[in-house]
């Protein structure tokens, strides 16, 4: 985001509220929600295992093609620059292993010997080819007839693996999830009733629900000279409305907690409701979980 975006945010763009844009927290197309590295910070020579949290709630189980590419120290423009450097892709599934080159730190300034391995991924409900498409992606996603598949069945992106000696970063630990105060296990699908309103706050009280999840208190690590990680908790849902797409932890209690409100607004009861939770810190640490809801 450009620097001037800060000023535009500050003074409020009148168009934002009235634009009718889709909400990022509602997942109704093929989406990649998170890519976890078992080693968010690695050293040269180490192999990092990447696993993805992805969703295709309206895809009816269609097959998804995956491709991965790697670049080393791509420069400050990062993901798009990394994508532009790709000369080949590796096909695979929704997990990928990256080995950090032994010379990943060579040529970096002695005052700041921190490198990056950029990993580009693409997921497609069709066929992937290494041909840039019109939307700036380094790959094209086409159906059986050769037609381009749009955002409903194609997503690409990237993440970074920080390469530096003497530092580590643990992925944050998500402990418990609660639905209206009741612990929400993977096998439990709390019943919900639809609400015809557009927003959570306009729904009747019995259709509004409090969603909470917790992380361990040591998940927000300190590092370097008194620096503390910034940790954000994300919420995603396959339908309905969330009051917040992401929040920062409430640390007023002994256990850091992330909370928002949910209501099944304008829902389609023919499809089940899924919910995903992603914890991120600002040094590449990621943890995720998912749960289901059932219709009353």
């Amino acid at each position, binding site marked *: 985001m450009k620097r001037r975006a800060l000023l535009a945010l500050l003074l409020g763009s009148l168009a934002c509220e009235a634009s009718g844009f889709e909400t990022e927290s509602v997942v109704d197309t093929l989406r990649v929600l998170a890519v976890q590295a078992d080693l968010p910070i690695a050293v040269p020579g180490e192999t990092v295992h990447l696993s993805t949290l992805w969703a295709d709630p309206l895809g009816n189980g269609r097959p998804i093609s995956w491709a991965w590419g790697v670049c080393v120290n791509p420069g400050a423009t990062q993901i798009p620059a990394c994508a532009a450097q790709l000369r080949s892709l590796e096909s695979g599934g929704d997990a990928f292993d990256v080995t950090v080159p032994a010379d990943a730190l060579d040529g970096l300034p002695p005052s700041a010997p921190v490198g990056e391995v950029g990993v580009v991924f693409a997921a497609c409900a069709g066929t992937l080819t290494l041909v840039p498409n019109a939307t*700036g992606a380094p790959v094209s996603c086409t159906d059986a007839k050769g037609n381009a598949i749009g955002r409903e069945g194609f997503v690409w992106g990237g993440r970074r693996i920080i390469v530096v000696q003497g530092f580590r970063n643990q992925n944050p630990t998500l402990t418990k999830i609660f639905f209206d105060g009741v612990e929400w296990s993977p096998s439990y699908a709390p019943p919900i009733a639809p609400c015809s309103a557009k927003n959570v706050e306009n729904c009747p009280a019995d259709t509004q629900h409090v969603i909470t999840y917790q992380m361990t208190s040591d998940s927000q690590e300190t590092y370097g000279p008194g620096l503390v990680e910034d940790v954000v908790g994300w919420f995603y849902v396959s339908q309905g409305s969330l009051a*917040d797409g992401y929040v920062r932890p409430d640390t007023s209690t002994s256990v850091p907690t992330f909370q928002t409100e949910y209501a099944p607004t304008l829902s389609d009861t023919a499809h089940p409701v899924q919910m995903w939770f992603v914890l991120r810190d600002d040094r590449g640490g990621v943890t995720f979980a998912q749960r289901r809801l059932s219709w009353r």
Partner: protein
Amino acid sequence: MALAVATLSAIAAAQQGAVPPRIKADAEAVYPEAARGLEREVLLVVTIDAEGRVTDAQLAEPTGDALDDVALDMVRRYEFFPATRDGKPIKSRIKMRLSLHGPPQESPDSGASEADAGDAGSVQAATTDASADAGAPPAPEVEDVHVRGERSHESPTVRTLDRTEIESMPGGAGDALRPIESLPGVSRAPAFSGLIILRGSAPQDSQVFIDRAAVPLAFHFGGLAAVVPTELIDQVDVYPGNYDVQYGRGNGGIVDIGLRSPARDRIHAVAKFDLIDGSALVEGPIFDDKTRFLVAARRSWIEAYFPWVAQNLSLGVTASPVYYDYQAMLERDLGKHTTLRLTFLGSNDNVSVYLPPSQSSDPAFAGQLQNETDFWRLQLQADSKFKSGAKLFSQLSVGQDHLLLDLGSTLNADSTATRVQGRVQGEVPITKAVRLLGGLDLEGGQWDYTLSFPAIPSEASPDTGPLFGQKKLTSVRSLGYFDPAAFANVEVFPVKRLRVLLGGRVDTFGTAEGVYVQPRMNVRYVLRDGDDKTTLKAALGLYAQPPQINESDPVFGTPGLHANQATQVSIGIEQEALRHLEISVEPFYKRLFDLVTQRPDPSQPSGFLYDNEGTGFAYGAEFLIKYKPDRHFSGWIAYTISRSERRDLPELPLRLFEYDQTHVFSALGTYRFGDGWSVGARVRYVTGNPYTPILGGYFDADAGDYGPVDKLPVYSGRLPAFFSMDVRVEKQWRLFKDSTLQVYLDVLNATNNRNVESFTYQYDYQVHATAAGLPILPALGARLTL
């Protein structure tokens, strides 16, 4: 009916090296019937030619009553000994204050009054009788008199707005600086930016001065109001480019806010109030008119109602900036030739707002935002002008600039710069045809800052995506700097009506390598003198500008850079016509080289290597047709056509400059009906700003947000054109003696045109919408002057 005339001051002779005109023969006032019972002082601006004849007289503060015409008629029959410079008679412009007293109202019991004869002869007789009764006219009083000879500015192009123009300009809402956007060579700044863009230059290339000392800001936060209230201003000079050797350290232009002197005659006060802020000012003499003071302060109050407005308009943020500014001045005349001025002024902007997650899908931009910008200056200056024509100006300014920008763990910037600026410059006539100017322009100080932020890409770089999760850099630095400069000019009149100015400036910069010798010249030739004067002009010069502080920072930038440089050329013609018109046409060309730009380089801490590899150019033409103000009407038409492009690296193609605006058109005028009423309007049409189209989006798994894929080269798209019409209605009441109450309504964007300022995008950049600037906005205000 006593008649007193306040005339010129010999002290004004100290100004600008000229001896002011003197009254040779005055004239009697002729009062019409409508002038009965009226009495007040009338301030006039009078133009006197080299023969001592009044060629023009304008009302500086017209009210529309009968005394306006009386004063104009009277002063046009005056005869003067003309102003002189170096013994040569010159054309001059002065301000004169006439104290007029109309004949008394008719008593209901009286028979025919002395004026019943209905002819001027009776009235004149009464006037004469009254004068005899009142005794001899009082001695001339000191007044604000400015002797303006031929354009005495050394810069070839300077456009000046004086306070009366600024206060009444439609669309300006009485602000000191917003009206400059209506001048040629000045581009339209994006809404809420407060930027000043001159002749295709980047905002950071141009400088703002207050009484020739540089200040960091022109506007309070978001361009709401200038940092100095209009009531303090004498005039604003805008140098769009090719400025003289006295100024430097910038490749763009200059806006110099000249503060006026405090009143000499008595204590005055002004209170002003509008929808955004309120201000008060007190000024006057201390003990005698040789020592004068002025104290002023202003504070915003928009924060009192902005949350209510924001809530009802469903804006994303509900907090409003708070600002205040303050000024104090003490001025003392030392003898006949020198004026000493001590000024203390400052400005503060503060905003603290919580940015909710709903406002941005990038967590880096959610949370508590704190932004504070403030500066203060203490300036002591001595201005001496001698009968020989020599001048000496010296100034010492000390102050601090402070910036705090804090947004959670994403962005922390805390900077304090302690600045000392010193200037001493002198002018000496060597012969009748040769004059020397020279001086020193020194700036130095200490800059302490902490900056913690992801690497800063240039505006020419593709978007680097969401900031959350990006590697953050931290630089803590304490930097002493010293930027000395020396300059000199030789002004030569080789033949009559031809002036040639040859000079140069030498700069070194604490934040750049090298010594920069900048020769500059300009030429003015009066092709035809008289009422329809024609002047040809040309200028050529070299300019140097140090890198921005982040560009030479060892963490964010690259030390050891050289200065940005530019060659500027302009030619022009100025034509006066039909007594009331001033027409000017000025093509210009600017070649930029050694521009500091960046290229990706992973061997650098920031990932960018900065070097002087950039080039660019700006060229175009400025047109101005100005109607010289008369009793009823003032206004002008300004049009600039231009092109500005940059080449960021040698291997890259040229691209549009981010503020390139092909056409900038303004037409404005104010009509004074009389009885204190005036109506004005301004129409503006401006080509839309360039923008970078977005092809699509990618998911940044570290941030949990999407980033845009820019269509390269950057700035290949252009927003729709901007159009607005502003309307102003003003009513002024004369309360008693010199006191006035002025109420105005300035309706910005009166046609409620939806001007697109930018685009907003869905989270994945697959869908976009336009974001509009200001809708129709009425600005209601009142000013009480005592």
